[in-house]
């Protein structure tokens, strides 16, 4: 793994735009001031056929050709090891070797969940779970403030492109749902709980747990008709309603047969029914111990204005 040559000086949030173009290789990102790291895998740009003609799900049709620009994707799902630093500023302060700086200090953090959001399934190397899409994006914002690098959620199209890894079968390894046990934690082999990331075989790009373990957030609103008029390049359908939004890949609770590269899962207001407060938390789904996230970093980041707009979009009240 090569370290990126990215001199980081936290002078201002928008000061990173003109940084030298990075080398497009795998790298390990250290979260500054902490011992925590995570790995990023390059996904070459290209064209692929999105959707499935053989599936029974109408919303996966029509299969349509889509061009995707290059990006890095998290080699693993984001784990509590990193997410908890964002979750609790006092914890971040306690573990950091140096001051975290005014900008990071001033970032709005999640409300500390009243309930145990690990649901007794543990933290170390286990995927962070139960966060809203807003919470997932704010985690990216925190990382941006810490590292100067634009991390964001994948679009639905990027996720499927990354999962397929050039395949047009149901799974990246073929069509046999029994073979998935070598690659994924599903209802059949998970023992009803999240599992440590990276314990199964990766897909051809080198992405671990792309199916199963936890559902992964995308940035897109769910629209069953979207494929009929999809843009041909880097399609996205930005979320402007809380439900339903696209989540991908299935989880430890999903039967293998229901998982595929094309399958479009969605979030559900029921995931918040155990939140006894009104307004309901913008940060947590207390009944969704199966939703997590995987980071994307586009090779060519957008303008500072677009980055700022992405991170600072106000959350929608939920009640």
């Amino acid at each position, binding site marked *: 793994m090569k370290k990126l040559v990215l001199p980081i000086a936290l002078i201002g949030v928008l000061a990173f735009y003109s940084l030298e173009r990075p080398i497009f290789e795998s790298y390990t990102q250290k979260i500054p001031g902490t011992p925590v790291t995570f790995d990023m895998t390059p996904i070459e740009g290209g064209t692929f056929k999105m959707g499935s003609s053989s599936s029974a799900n109408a919303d996966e049709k029509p299969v349509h050709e889509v061009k995707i620009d290059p990006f890095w994707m998290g080699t693993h799902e984001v784990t509590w090891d990193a997410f908890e630093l964002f979750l*609790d500023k006092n914890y971040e302060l306690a573990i950091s070797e140096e001051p975290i700086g005014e900008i990071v200090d001033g970032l709005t953090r999640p409300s500390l969940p009243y309930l145990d959001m690990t649901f007794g399934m543990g933290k170390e190397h286990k995927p962070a779970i139960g966060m809203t899409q807003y919470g997932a994006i704010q985690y990216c914002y925190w990382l941006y403030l810490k590292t100067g690098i634009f991390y964001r959620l994948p679009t639905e199209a990027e996720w499927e492109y990354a999962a397929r890894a050039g395949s047009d079968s149901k799974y990246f390894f073929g069509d046999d749902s029994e073979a998935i046990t070598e690659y994924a934690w599903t209802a059949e082999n998970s023992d009803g709980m999240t599992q440590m990331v990276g314990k199964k075989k990766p897909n051809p790009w080198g992405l671990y747990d792309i199916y199963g373990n936890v559902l992964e957030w995308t940035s897109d609103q769910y629209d069953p008709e979207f494929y009929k008029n999809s843009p041909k390049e880097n399609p996205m359908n930005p979320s402007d309603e809380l439900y339903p939004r696209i989540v991908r890949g299935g989880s430890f609770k999903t039967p293998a047969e229901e998982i595929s590269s094309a399958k479009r899962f969605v979030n559900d207001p029921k995931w918040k029914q155990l939140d006894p*407060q009104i307004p309901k938390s913008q940060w947590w789904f207390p009944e969704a111990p199966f939703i997590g996230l995987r980071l994307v970093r586009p090779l060519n980041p957008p303008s500072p204005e677009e980055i700022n707009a992405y991170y600072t979009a106000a959350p*929608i009240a939920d009640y």
Partner: protein
Amino acid sequence: MKNTRRDFIKTSALATGGVLAANSFVLPGAYAAPAETHLKLALIGCGGRGTGAVFQAMETGHPIKLVAMADAFRDRLDGSLKPILDKYGAEKVDVPEDRKFVGFDAYKHAIAEADVVILATPPGFRPDHFTEAVKQGKQIFMEKPVATDAVGIRKVLKAAEEAKAKKLNVVVGLQRHYQDNYRKTIAKIHAGEIGDIIGGQVYWNDGGVWVRPRKPEQTEMEYQMRNWYYFNWLCGDHITEQHVHNIDVANWVKKGYPVKAEGTGGRMVRTGKEFGEIFDHHTVQFTYEDGTVIHSECRHFPGAANRVDETFQGTKGTAYLSAGNHGVLTDYTGKKLYEHDRENNINPYQQEHNELWAALVNGEYKFADAENGARSTMTSILGRYATYSGKVITMDEAINSDINLFPDTLAWDATPKLVPNADGFYPHAVPGKTKTV
């Protein structure tokens, strides 16, 4: 606002379609004028939880009208009314200016306007609010815990007797009592499926809760009221405010309350001045009348392992319970005797209102949760008395403690009993020195 209005429409249809005869409201203690077609609801304590409880009441679909609200702070009241009005509309929400009550006495006026009251302020106020609601003959939903010291518990127990005599329904928000996995699994334990219970462990270990920073314009009283989690007269420490849930499950399983407690606690990782006086960890051994010892543990340690659940050992097997709809009984060969189906369980916060309001519209007297609510809250306070003092404390000593945490005067310029030192830090309990009974 992109919220779906589907639920609202459904609820309205039920309310208008199901016009109930006025004489359905043969409520004990409630006045049902012939023209009255709605049960009148007042919310006392307009935080997130109280607002949530109003939503759950409305979602029952029964004809309910919110008619009055009370809070110490006007901004909290306004912040609560907005989403209620947005979601349920003027037909079900009728709280004009003269039925918005603000300040320390607000509760009395709001209670007077209603048939049914939701009591959801910080727990330190609950004894007085409950007493007043019972005195005025109202039907009651009140949140846990129901007090923060023994003086308050004794008030609640006295009012609980009066509520029974008046046949007032009282539901307490120990919602595990309204959650299927707990009801079914504990019924099986009581039926003897794992034999006699001879031990148990109950936990609320997680990273902690919110903090509200001090603002320069605040008096000491206002600051403590805003940042109430960290002051015992308001909160009772997290062993009471949160862990009461798990301790209550132990009492439920044991069908009784402990006779003594001993334990250890302190402030280890949460030591800043913004954290008031409460401990960040307690571990307590509760001994029951038959000699059974239940181990209780609660902590607010970010970065450490989380655990919120209950386990019990019987003479024939073990039990595992959690709010995530777990309910498992296992024998000592590892064979599962019972496993609760975790899918499609009803939200217990909704269920407690479904059952309460069904009783209310039918004019039934079915719920008397206050006494157990008080005795389980007292159990958690007994635990705190043990960890704060470092001594073995009996339930008899604890429940008769005359140490009153409540301020002598409630006013924004009055001084609470606990004040910070010159550096802004609050004195906190020191085991071996602090007196609790």
